[in-house]
């Protein structure tokens, strides 16, 4: 499964993408795994109320399951237009 980062989440982590071989059960489990990796991940995921998540390119909740999912993305609230 690919994990993508955009905007300041990408900048804080330092790269745009990670590859996870064995996905955890839910998005929140993935967040906790990433937080435990390094300080820069912990900083990026310190306040998940400031983040949005997309599962297979659709907006999702943090309790969304990851079974069979190909791509998860984390980013700040969107500012298009």
């Amino acid at each position, binding site marked *: 499964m690919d994990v993508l980062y*955009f905007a300041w989440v990408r900048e804080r982590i330092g790269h745009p993408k990670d590859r996870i071989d064995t996905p955890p059960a839910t998005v929140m489990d993935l967040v906790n795994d990433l937080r435990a990796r390094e300080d820069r991940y912990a900083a990026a995921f310190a306040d998940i109320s400031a983040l949005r998540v997309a599962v297979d390119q659709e907006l999702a909740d943090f309790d969304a399951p990851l079974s069979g999912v190909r791509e998860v993305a984390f980013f700040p609230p*969107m*500012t*298009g*237009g």
Partner: protein
Amino acid sequence: MDIRVQTAPFDLGAEANAFAARQSGMGAVVTFSGIVRDLGGDLQAMEIEHYPGMTEAALSGIAEQAATRWQIGDALILHRHGRLTPDEMIMMVATSARHRQDAFQAAEFLMDYLKSRAPFWKKEVTVAGAAWVAARDADEDALSRW
């Protein structure tokens, strides 16, 4: 429906004319365009990042929703990404309908939704440095009226 995400500039007049020319039996065409603003007087550039793949899908979904809620003939959403300078056009939407009310409302709906639901992020670059534009609560609240 015409959904385009591109780095290249676009010609608002040419796009509006081409869109209008494609319509048949439509009495109203509404267009909106968004322009890079330099509110503080020190903006050098606006950098727009997006999520390739999801962006196009999200914009198509928003346009399809508009088509189920209003009697529109067609919709165009064109949004740029990359590095833009003040007074450049960022994006445009166009809608057509038999009657103006549907065209206006659908265009407003497209704008409200794409601001908060399409994966674009703006970063302002000034002499003092660069900063990501924070989402405004008002933009999120605007969705509740639909």
